[in-house]
């Protein structure tokens, strides 16, 4: 097990030099905005979907993380929470829906079934994990995972989204002396 824990970064008070003015890097502000505006795709396949729906309501309240707007069409989504068993008949459909999602996109494998087939491992019509079909960013264990576990996975995903670099690294500038007198 990796000891590494991703943390989600937020703007701090010291970033505000005066009211309504924030001083930070472009990478930070873009990745902060992107990680808090995730549109999950309503992709419940089995009982994990019940926990996913329960996460959406007031008691657990997924909107705390800025990702409460579940969309029923892949074209408006960038996160697919695969909540349930993927079978051989559904797998091509899942792949097609994933392909229709807008870039950049992420996949969360929720629960034992989506991660490995779970209790249905090696079944006659079961895909042993959704990672056989699409690339997965975060795996959440549990059968089914409680909403708290889903949220930990989503926080992990937010940390991962924030690692994305928006500003390409500049090639090293040629060493030239700055003209005197210019600030």
């Amino acid at each position, binding site marked *: 097990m990796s000891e590494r824990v991703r943390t989600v970064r937020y703007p701090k008070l010291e970033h505000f030099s005066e009211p309504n003015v924030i001083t930070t890097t472009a990478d930070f502000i873009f990745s902060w905005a992107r990680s808090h505006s995730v549109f999950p795709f309503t992709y419940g396949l089995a009982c994990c979907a019940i926990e996913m729906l329960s996460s959406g309501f007031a008691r657990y309240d997924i909107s705390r993380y800025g990702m409460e707007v579940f969309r029923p069409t892949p074209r408006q989504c960038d996160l697919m929470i695969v909540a349930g068993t993927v079978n*051989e*008949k559904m797998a091509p459909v899942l792949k097609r829906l994933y392909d229709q999602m807008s870039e950049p996109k992420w996949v969360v494998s929720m629960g034992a079934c989506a991660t490995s087939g779970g209790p249905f491992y090696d079944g006659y019509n079961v*895909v*042993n994990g959704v990672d056989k079909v699409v690339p997965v960013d975060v795996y959440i264990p549990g059968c089914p995972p409680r909403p708290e576990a889903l949220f930990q996975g989503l926080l992990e995903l937010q940390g991962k989204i924030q690692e994305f670099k928006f500003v390409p690294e500049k090639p090293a500038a040629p060493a030239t002396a700055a003209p005197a007198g210019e600030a």
Partner: protein
Amino acid sequence: MSMDAISELLVERFAADLTDVRIQEPDTVVARVAREKLKALAARLKADPDAGYETLNWIAGVDRETGFESVYHVYSWKTNTYLELHVALPREAPEVDTVTGVWPAADWHERESWDMVGIVYAGHPDLRRILLKDDFVGHPLRKDYVDLAENHPHV
């Protein structure tokens, strides 16, 4: 109507078709039917004013290893009781007439039984797989089904 009365009524009116009639408490009569008699019997059971087996609840496909069974669970609103019709089928040619003409609900149940156990329902309007993908090979709920690599394209 008591279970004994229903059972007697069935024996009396359908003696030529039903065999092994017995009561399964609290509310079910179980009987065997020869497969060539099933279709005509189903129509008569539905039309009978006293028995009134109007509703087909579901059809089960059973693998008995020596052969197959198609089991019809029928319900009567008139007497609030169930009838379980067992039709034995030979293993090498498990085929029975469809009852979709009598009970339209049989449509998808017969498709499922074909899909999972491989029982052929002759005369079915659209006998194709319903749960598994169209190119699935074999019938997975048969006792002798062996998991095939071609049924697992995603490995």
